[in-house]
């Protein structure tokens, strides 16, 4: 995204946000959230490792069992490449959690190939190189930072050529893969705190809204994801109640099925 395009996008978010009156320097202890817009016009979608970091603090996770080496299908449809790119970047974060340098390096190459396939390879080349170099040095913080930069650069490049919808599919792919792994980990070692990490109803609504605005991408996988989000919504939008093990398992079944659909041809 060019800075100006980004500015316009951000201004739109700002315009959709709330203009409040200044009440002085004292910080109000409470605000009336009903006055705030209920619409999530745009969000900074959390990185998978933001969730993985919280998950790690709940206990030891065997990240190696979640590392995926499958290179996936070579798609020609740009929306499919975008979805896959998001999941591959998420796989990069998983490989970093597992401190699996060879897989991280493969993912660096894969990300570059997919970015080229979607026409934004140039902006990714330096990041792919940095990921590989940092993985060689086992500098995991740098790899995490470069994966974030990679996703940001891909999305900026897409937005620059007015491919915002593809950019949103990158985020969606990453979110689905992150949710698949989160639910897999929590299903195996259930904890209420782990399940609570799924409490992301506004984010899910955001993705639903975005998908509904992509009728031109007439692909079975996108329809399948749209239907799946409808199924997942009531399972995570539970207010102050706890998300039970049964729901976590069901979300894992759904996201695993979608994950498989994203990497394989229809």
């Amino acid at each position, binding site marked *: 995204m*060019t*800075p*100006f395009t*980004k*500015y316009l996008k*951000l*201004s739109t*978010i*700002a*315009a959709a*946000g*709330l*203009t*409040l*009156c*200044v009440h002085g*320097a004292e*910080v*109000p*202890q*409470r*605000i*009336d*959230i009903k006055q*705030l*817009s209920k619409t*999530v016009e745009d*969000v*900074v*979608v*959390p*990185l998978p*490792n*933001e*969730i993985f*970091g*919280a*998950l790690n*603090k*709940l206990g030891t996770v065997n990240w190696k069992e979640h590392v995926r080496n499958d290179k996936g299908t070579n798609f020609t449809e740009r929306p499919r490449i975008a979805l896959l790119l998001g999941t591959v970047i998420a796989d990069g974060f998983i490989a970093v959690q597992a401190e699996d340098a060879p897989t991280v390096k493969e993912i660096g190459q894969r990300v570059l190939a997919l970015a080229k396939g979607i026409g934004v390879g140039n902006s990714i080349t330096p990041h792919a190189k940095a990921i590989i170099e940092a993985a060689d040095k086992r500098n995991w*913080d740098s790899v*995490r*930072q470069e994966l*974030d*930069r990679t*996703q*940001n650069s891909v999305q900026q490049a897409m937005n620059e050529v007015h491919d915002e919808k593809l950019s949103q599919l990158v985020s969606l792919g990453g979110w689905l893969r992150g949710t698949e792994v989160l639910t897999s980990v929590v299903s195996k070692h259930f904890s209420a*705190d782990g399940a*609570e*990490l*799924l*409490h*992301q*109803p*506004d*984010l899910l609504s955001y993705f639903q809204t975005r998908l509904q605005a992509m009728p031109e991408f007439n692909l079975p996988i996108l329809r399948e994801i749209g239907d799946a989000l409808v199924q997942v919504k009531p399972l995570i939008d539970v207010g102050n109640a706890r998300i039970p093990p049964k729901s976590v398992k069901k979300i894992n079944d759904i996201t695993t099925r979608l994950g498989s659909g994203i990497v394989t041809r229809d």
Partner: protein
Amino acid sequence: MNASAKILLRGSSLLVLIVALQSTVAASVDDAQSFALQAAEPYVKEGFQVREDYWGGDLGSGEKKAVRQQLFKGNEYWFWLGTEVERAKISVHIYDSDGKLAEEPDGWEKGHFAAAHVIPKTTGSYFVIVNVEESPEERTHWALVYGFR
């Protein structure tokens, strides 16, 4: 000058004006972002990973904006707000989904920088309220970045 040349000249002038305007506006938001990142810098040494993505826009003096952000219990977050308008006074505060102030007491405001610290008690949506309290400019560009560990 013939009519075609005049149209071409006017078109070119308009294009130059649009490009110049875009550069000016974009530079301001980019500058605001670089100040927000400057505020974040010391925290990187403390293990915070600062996200590449950010929010931004412009506000009049005394205006606030709210943005919504998904936070995860178990993580610790800092939000850093910056503007390029050095004489502006800005602030950032964080509320939970019930509208209750959710931040730690060590947030700070230093002229055209401000920061808020939150250790979420629950996973869910939070509201980040950005405020341009005072500014000599009619519109003040702002940018908000965040980091977590």
